[in-house]
């Protein structure tokens, strides 16, 4: 009996060591990958490639930000709307099940398939259309909507029933409850979801290669949205940082392509890191704000 127990204890200790080892290994992997990219980016840094000249990354950085912003404008209302529907209005049944399967299929669709669909519908089927920013924005939105839907739905479902009951108790309608109680209460979760969706949008390349294209030709002196060289024009060809890295690896022309790619990768990782940390930070701030100032919660706390 005692021998058995000793063996079990040794096994336990060995297993624990293994687990710590694996965890440590992956933390190390993540750290070294991030450091490698950042260091290479710094080593390859050539200031002329950060500006807005030829082959420089300034245009791509602007394009990434602009496209992500536009796709959020499109997908946030749609995603939140769908999430609200699923959480509050959808009755359990066949149709709701079908919607759920659709959301899950959309969210696990390979981004290259979304890019193909975008290419087919927005470029091939529209006569005279060439690669444009709007098509890329629409493709990104298709990728972001399921994410936001799920985040919103989960966020709303997690809210304790007391919130709803309290709201109905003071005579609010369902819609008023949603808009004035449930959405604000799940705001931290939703905002985190939005920021993560933005992060995904930054890193996306496969869906954009065939929709918004591989090149950009803009003049930053021209801000008229209807002019063809304006950065704001949504019907122009636009490449993002991620697309640029892909392009630099296989099809680029300049001698410095490796260095530009290193810089681009570093820039991309930095942006994603900022978004990730930002999401966490804002999420926590909002959560504290909600807990601190929400009168209902204070009342509940007093009652408990």
């Amino acid at each position: 009996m005692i021998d058995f127990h000793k063996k079990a204890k040794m096994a336990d200790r060995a297993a624990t060591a293994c687990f710590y080892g694996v965890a440590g290994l992956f933390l190390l992997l993540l750290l070294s990958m991030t450091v490698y990219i950042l260091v290479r980016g710094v080593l390859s840094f050539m200031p002329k490639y950060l500006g807005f000249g030829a082959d420089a990354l300034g245009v791509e950085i602007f394009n990434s930000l602009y496209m992500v912003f536009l796709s959020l404008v499109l997908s946030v209302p749609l995603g939140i709307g769908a999430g609200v529907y699923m959480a509050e209005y959808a009755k359990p049944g066949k149709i709701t099940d079908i919607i759920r399967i659709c959301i899950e299929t959309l969210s696990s669709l390979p981004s290259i398939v979304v890019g193909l669909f975008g290419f087919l519908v927005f470029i091939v089927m529209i006569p005279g259309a060439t690669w444009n920013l709007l098509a890329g924005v629409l493709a990104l939105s298709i990728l972001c909507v399921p994410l936001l839907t799920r985040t919103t739905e989960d966020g709303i479902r997690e809210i304790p029933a007391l919130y709803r009951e309290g709201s109905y108790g003071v005579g609010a309608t369902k819609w008023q409850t949603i808009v004035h109680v449930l959405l604000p209460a799940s705001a931290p979760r939703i905002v985190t979801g939005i920021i993560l969706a933005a992060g995904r949008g930054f890193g996306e390349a496969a869906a954009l290669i065939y929709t918004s294209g591989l090149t950009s030709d803009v003049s930053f002196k021209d801000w008229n949205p209807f002019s063809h060289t304006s950065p704001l024009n949504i019907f122009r060809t636009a490449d993002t940082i991620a697309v640029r890295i892909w392009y630099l690896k296989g099809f680029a022309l300049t001698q410095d392509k490796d260095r530009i790619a290193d810089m681009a990768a570093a820039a991309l990782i930095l942006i994603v890191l900022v978004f990730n940390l930002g999401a966490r930070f804002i999420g926590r701030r909002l959560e504290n704000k909600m807990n601190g100032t929400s009168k209902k919660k204070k009342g509940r706390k007093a009652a408990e």
Partner: protein
Amino acid sequence: MKADFKKENAGRIAVTVIGFCIIALTLAIFLFLLNKGVQTFTDLKYSVLDFFTGTNWSPASSAGEPKGSVGSLVFIAGSVEVSGLALLIATPFAVASAVFMSEIAPALGRRVFQPAVEMFVGIPSVVYGWIGFRVLCPFIAKVFHMPFGGESLLAAGIVLAVMIYPTITTVSADAVRCLPDEYREASYGLGSTRWQMIRHISLPASLPGILTGIVLGLARAFGEALAVSMVIGMKYRIPVSLLSRTSTLTTQIANQMGTAPDKTGQTDSLWTMGLLLFVISFLFILLIRLIGRTGKENRQ
């Protein structure tokens, strides 16, 4: 009062429409891909059997050329093998990390490990591909004495494994965390060590969740295009060893789309591959739901 109800109805209608738009969108994607994808077989008369079992992919790229063939077995096999390899590499580490995060060091897990894993998710796939190309391929070339470069099934498998690791980890960790504490307490009550409890109680009980994570990881690996194409070598050959060069469905689409006009064998067969990918993702989703349902039944 009336105004309130107007808004009420407007709101309800709006979100219901949006909900149904999701169905419409998914259906639209499927129908468009279906329309383009079957043209390979209906309009251009390539054989379905040849598509799935043939190994010679050399379709016509314009109307005047001989028809050629669209044997896509190479790409299907490539996709399957690369994803399978990635799964094999990632799963043990991912499950171990999940257990670590939820059982061994939950506090450390929540504050350090979880954010770190989520950071992994955020890294764009092209960056993974770039690192793979710059670091992993030369390394493999050196270790395995490959004079022609280290692009291989192994390189793609490793890159994908690192990419799907966070997916499997987070889902599995959620599953393990959600186990009722009674399970653990019962196990400790019987005098087990933590490892025994993990091995005999936690893991089997959270198996459905872990399997879900694995299938999600597999789906992600299957659908990855750019990172894989940078390190896989792009040869039309069914991989026979870890060091073989090959191609997958996704890399073929990424590289060949647009090189030939519409309604030719070359382009239409790529649409068929896209359709195939859509169907496979759908099947993965059904599989996950099946696992979830079986898990619930077993629990009861």
